[in-house]
């Protein structure tokens, strides 16, 4: 066995030598065959199953993430660009988040009322709704909207910069495009989503307040006193912390898909599309993990 291997490596070395030594262009064809043989040997370990591809993708995303952490702490820091991206992301999603938040607060209240009334616990209505909005629905719905709006936007933008060689142009001019495009966007997404979630929670509670007052009459003061009493510190902190991870995931997936898109016009659409799909999936996965961790810590 060992002999065979050493024979082979000898052979390859010989091939190498021959390659380098042959000075004539007419040898090009012969050389191609040699190169081809070497190439086939390399191709033996190329991916062919979807499972292989999946693991390769996971490995690539991991490398991408590691690169982010490596570059984010190294100067130079693109502060202006990060702020600009944060502003654009927040600004882009604000109206959508406001409308959705309000409607969800309203609908949730209207739909929960009969159940609670049947149990004779109608006075719990504000507390019930507030807890579900702040703990779960606010963060998740906002993150999904963010994935749809911002994740796809990042994916499409970076992919089209890739197609039109703008990323190459940055490399050539001595700019690190990973730092300028990727790091800034991931940071901006990580910082902006928590703010948007807090905003969505507040608008959601407002919707709930309106819902409470459609039937019956709850004073503002009573409504908010009830909510504050029903919320623990332990409700708020995990709910806020997980939104940072949601934002990070949306930014990361959007950047990864866009930055590594296929060159070509379809590449842009594909990047945008798969960015939304994977970012949404990541939001749910992170949410599940967060719930597990929180309940473990609380018990």
């Amino acid at each position, binding site marked *: 066995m060992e002999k065979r291997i050493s024979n082979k490596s000898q052979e390859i070395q010989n091939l190498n030598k021959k*390659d*380098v030594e042959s000075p004539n*262009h*007419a040898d*090009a064809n012969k*050389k*191609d065959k040699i*190169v*081809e043989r070497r*190439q086939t040997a390399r191709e033996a370990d190329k991916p062919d199953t979807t499972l292989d591809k999946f693991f390769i993708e996971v490995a690539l995303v991991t490398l991408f993430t590691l690169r982010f952490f490596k570059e984010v702490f190294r100067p130079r820091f693109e502060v202006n660009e990060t702020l600009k991206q944060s502003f654009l992301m927040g600004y882009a999603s604000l109206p959508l988040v406001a409308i959705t938040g309000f409607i969800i607060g309203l609908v949730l209240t209207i739909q929960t009322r009969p159940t609670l009334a049947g149990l004779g616990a109608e006075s719990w209505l504000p507390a019930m709704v507030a807890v579900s909005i702040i703990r779960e629905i606010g963060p998740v719905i906002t993150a999904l909207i963010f994935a749809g709006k911002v994740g796809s936007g990042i994916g499409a933008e970076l992919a089209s910069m890739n197609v*039109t*060689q*703008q990323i*190459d*142009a940055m*490399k*050539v*001019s*001595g*700019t*690190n495009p990973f730092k*300028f495009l990727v790091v800034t966007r991931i940071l901006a997404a990580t910082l902006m989503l928590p703010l948007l979630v807090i905003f969505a929670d507040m608008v959601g509670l407002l919707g709930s307040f309106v819902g409470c007052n459609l039937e019956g009459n709850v004073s503002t003061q009573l409504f908010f006193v009830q909510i504050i009493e029903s919320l623990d510190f332990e409700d708020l902190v995990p709910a806020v912390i997980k939104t940072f991870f949601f934002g990070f995931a949306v930014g990361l997936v959007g950047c990864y898909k866009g930055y590594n898109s296929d060159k070509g016009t379809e590449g842009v659409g594909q990047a945008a599309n798969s960015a939304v799909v994977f970012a949404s999936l990541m939001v749910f996965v992170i949410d599940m993990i967060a719930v597990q961790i929180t309940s473990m810590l609380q018990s």
Partner: protein
Amino acid sequence: MVTPEITNQNKSDALKEGSVVIEMKHVRKSFGKNYVLRDINLVIHKGESVVILGKSGTGKSVLIKCIVGLNDIDDGTLIILGQDISELKRDARNELRKKIGFLFQSGALYDSMTVRGNLEFPLKRQAKRPSQTEMDHLIQEALSQVGLSAAENQTPSELSGGMRKRLGLARTLILKPEIMLYDEPTTGLDPITSKEISKLILKVQKNYDTTSIIITHDIECARLTANRIIVIQHGACAAEGSYTELLNSKNAWVRSFFE
């Protein structure tokens, strides 16, 4: 198969006295099973202006992308400004890259920025960022060199094809490169604008004292700009010489480029 013919080795001797700027030895580059560059050997001297001809898809763009570092070579030696690329660390490579200007085939303009923004971008990212007045001065200079001063506040999408090429050129020039690589600078332009761009290339060559490699399918552009022409076929240099030499080449295939 064309036998390699080296028709001219003495003509640009005056230039060859100068130092070697780019040297490629047995350079190879493939994408999977697509062997694009098979055995590239060339030497380019300071102040030369070399035109590369070849059929579409022979790897001309890949060749200059290897020089600027957008593609890594698989095999062989690539020496730029006396430094062997394979021995350089990432930072040193970046430094070297700044001395090379690259005009993209498609322009590769930053379409989210204005004309001015496109020019400011590379300046602002220098290690030593120039002051605002310096920057203004550099931008005005670059814009007037390429004749785009009036379009400072437009966005690239509002420019015509020829103006986009000029802007691409201005953006590259603003970093004062020692080596300029042009990827089909005149493609898609009318003959008159093509000629203007060719003259611009000559002007840049003179004013900025650069060494240039120009890829083109435009024989008029080659005639105007070249000290030396290299023809590439099957991933290797197949013929080399001055414009008139190749025009009168014994080889019919080489002559076919000039018809």
